[in-house]
């Protein structure tokens, strides 16, 4: 891993993640305070990486942008921003407006906080976030928008409802399976008798979001994303949170439901009955797969390459649900040491007992070298213990690795250029079934 550059970054900047997040809110209108090109850069990024999902109600090139020019850099962009917000309110029909700053407007020191606060004081539903690209990547942008939302948009002092929870932790479009992933977890939480606000699904409303301070528990299905926002929420609205790994597949979902059930004070009887019904259904599906699974010898070695959410959760479900052998898991996000430790902890003591090596490497072309270190070819001539049969679960950028070692491949983590994604997700029991379908489907495609 190089610390002086990042190879083919598998995300965009904070402002890009922030814009995608605002677009995904019901009636959300981003207002970029930036040069003209940032919106287009994000549109093209999603066009190539988000499983053919670009835009939404107000996305891509419809996103208002102050489109500041050289003269604004010299004289300041405050006036231009005020004008842009005023006219945005006249033209764009939104439930919530969010000003998102860029590298340029942060360096020149435009004071968006007071501009946004003035509009809010006049009753405009508007928030602002400082999302300059040099602050970090799209995952940070998601967190910053949620922080502003929780701080400046949610009603304060609303009465807590014991049954109500908020759910977040997957980034719109930078997890191409974001909607399916949220929907399945929402479905399971509802089965536990909880009322769930997910912010970004068609079931969510702006009024529900405004009242989301009434939740008694926040559930962040990530060990890395949206945690700053969880802290802000707790501080301002007094709602505690749990941060749990993205529950992909049967085993992870089972323990996820037990932890959430206990924390949200759901009776263990109800939790166990939900788990039992889901597992029954899950195994009814697997039962008739079993002959072919064995007869075609569908167990595989695997390399998993992905973002902080997927890499551990995919490796775990491969090992613990499917009985595959994920030798190497490669996390392509740049992460702080404490988050790296948390992720590594998830892959210790797997139920299957399988030891997966987790490494942190932002540069995809280096995965092959890590694999050679982990699996040096032994033997010679006709007696060689090669890394195979193998499978690569990663992004579409890992196709070259798959070709190199002659393995089938599935794109799950951003970028997903070669799949169309709508409501598919890999969380929960249903997502576990989808994943098995997609993995095995790739193996038997030529059959």
């Amino acid at each position, binding site marked *: 891993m190089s610390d002086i550059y990042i190879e083919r970054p598998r995300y965009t900047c904070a402002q890009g993640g922030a814009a995608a997040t605002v677009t995904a809110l019901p009636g959300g209108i981003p207002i970029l305070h930036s040069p003209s090109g940032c*919106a287009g850069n994000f549109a093209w990024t999603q066009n*190539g990486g988000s499983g053919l999902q670009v835009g939404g109600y107000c996305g891509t090139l419809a996103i208002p942008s102050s489109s500041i020019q050289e003269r604004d850099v010299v004289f300041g962009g405050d006036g231009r921003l005020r004008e842009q917000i005023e006219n945005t309110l006249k033209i764009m029909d939104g439930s919530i407006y969010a000003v998102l700053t860029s590298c340029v407007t942060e360096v020149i020191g435009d004071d968006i906080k007071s501009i946004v606060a003035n509009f809010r004081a006049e009753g405009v539903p508007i928030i602002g976030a400082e999302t300059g690209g040099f602050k970090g990547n799209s995952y940070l942008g998601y967190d910053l928008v949620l922080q502003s939302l929780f701080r400046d948009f949610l009603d304060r002092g609303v009465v807590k409802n014991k049954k109500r929870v908020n759910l977040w932790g997957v980034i719109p479009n930078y997890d191409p399976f974001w909607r399916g992933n949220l929907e399945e977890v929402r479905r399971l939480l509802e089965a536990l008798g909880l009322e769930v606000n997910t912010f970004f699904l068609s079931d969510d409303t702006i009024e529900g979001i405004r009242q989301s301070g009434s939740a008694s528990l926040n559930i962040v299905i990530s060990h890395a994303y949206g945690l700053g926002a969880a802290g802000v929420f707790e501080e301002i609205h007094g709602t505690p949170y749990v941060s749990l790994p993205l529950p992909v597949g049967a085993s992870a979902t089972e323990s996820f439901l037990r932890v959430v059930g206990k924390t949200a004070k759901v009776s263990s009887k109800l939790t166990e009955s939900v788990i039992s019904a889901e597992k029954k259904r899950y195994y009814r599906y697997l039962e008739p797969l079993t002959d072919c699974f064995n007869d075609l010898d569908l167990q595989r070695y695997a390399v998993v390459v992905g973002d902080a959410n997927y890499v551990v959760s995919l490796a775990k479900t491969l090992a613990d649900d499917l009985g595959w052998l994920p030798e190497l898991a490669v996390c392509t996000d740049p992460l702080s040491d404490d988050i790296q430790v948390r992720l590594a902890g998830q892959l210790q003591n797997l139920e299957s007992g399988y030891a997966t090596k987790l490494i942190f490497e932002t540069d995809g072309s280096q995965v092959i070298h890590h694999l050679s270190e982990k699996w040096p070819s032994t033997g010679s001539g006709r007696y060689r213990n090669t890394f195979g049969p193998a499978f690569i679960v990663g992004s579409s950028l890992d196709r070259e690795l798959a070709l190199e070692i002659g393995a089938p491949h599935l794109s799950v983590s951003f970028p997903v250029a070669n799949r169309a994604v709508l409501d598919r997700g890999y969380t929960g029991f249903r997502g576990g079934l989808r994943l098995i379908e997609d993995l095995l489907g790739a193996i038997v495609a030529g059959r």
Partner: protein
Amino acid sequence: MSYIDLKTAPKREDRLNACIAHGGSICEMAAGKGKKSCLQNDGDRSFTQGNICLLLPALAMLNTLPDNVVLQHSAVGCGSCTHSQNANVRFGSNARHGKPKDGIWLSTAMNETDVITGGEDKLEQAIIEADRRYQPFSITVVSGCVPGIIGDDIDSVVQRVQPEVNARLLPVHCEGFKTKIWATAYDAVYHGIGRTLLREGEQSPDADGLSPYRGLERLPYTVNLMNVSSMGKIDELELERLLNSLRLEVNVFPVFSHPESMVKATQAALSISTCPTHDDYFLSYLEERFGVPALIHHMPIGIENTGLWLRDVAARFGREQDVERIIEHEEKELKAALAEFRPLFEGKKVFISAGEFRALATARLLEEIGFTVVGIRSFHHDHFAEVEYEKLAKSSTEDYVVDIANVQPFEEANLLRRLKPDLFLGHANGNGTASKLGIPTHAIYHTALAYIGYKGVYEIARRLHRQLKNPIYNRKLADNVRLPYRGEWYETSPFTYITKGDAAA
């Protein structure tokens, strides 16, 4: 030309007086009225939507270069557009070399510390590491807004590091806030190529300044066919076919051409542009420094324009008689083939949106196959296009709207609700507005599809015929989703937010 001696290419607002904000009409643009007000005093908008900056088209070119690494010097998001452009690199490599290949792009991912302390050291180390790890022929060092605003000098870094690395280093300046005309991208890339790979000083010492690159011979029947990524391989093949029929050899330049082979461009007898929006900057350089004359008049999109383009080429080689025979044969065959599609197109209204030259040439094509043009949006305007507006003003019986706008879908939504066209053609990520209004849409540019030459006319007609046979997807979409504009907006003049320019309606 002295521009190439400058550190960076000038922006097109300055070099060509190009403009982006004007609401006018075809007759006005053709009569030069638009020119007068627009070119001398560009308008502005007091409400704008985001679009692209010069970095995107620049990367679309640079990512295609074989054996090249694109090193982006900026914050981590700049250049993430490559995720979609990479599809073109894969398809293009497959079409040309039989194997899909991902581009290699890197980002110095400048952080808060770099913004404060400067990013030159980091860039220097990144160049050295990229040279070691990938061993490419060249590294294009592309600057975004951040180095532009904090004052990193990428040219000095490149100069300093060049002796230490094997790769040829090309600095390319793409500081997005510095120009509102994204076509400046082509100048920025050509500038980098001209200054590093085709330097004047690398001609023969005894040359009069008008011979090919040092040690190379003039090729009297080879022409440069300029492609800045606005054509896929399929379109290159069509133009190669037509040029071969004039007994000319073709050197496609610069996309997908190996940086080492770019010197070939100085050997050609003629450079042929397919779009003045793209190439004027570099063609002047090739002409003035290497004696390669240039043609830069027509875009070979549509029947008439393809003929004009071919005639210009033929005249340079004294092949006027050949070309008339070729054109007559081609047109006869094409027109017969188009007959089956024409009844479905006849009288249908179309709105066209694209880069200026492409929009205008495509409008002419659509007229030729039976459509009636009711509106055009050009992404910018400069004087090269005047002749195209004149062609369209002559061929149309009624005046219609011309919106000079760097996309701005809100103006488009307003116009489309009034004009109610039967078909919309727009660029990538630019067809969504029309789609949500239920209008059948088609991409005006895609490197996997044919648009150019006689074959392009037929293939566009064939695709439009297919799409118009069942446009229900967009119709149902319109019944179920809405655009993000207030009702009042549609009651207002579409050009309400254009200010300052003399011609604002």
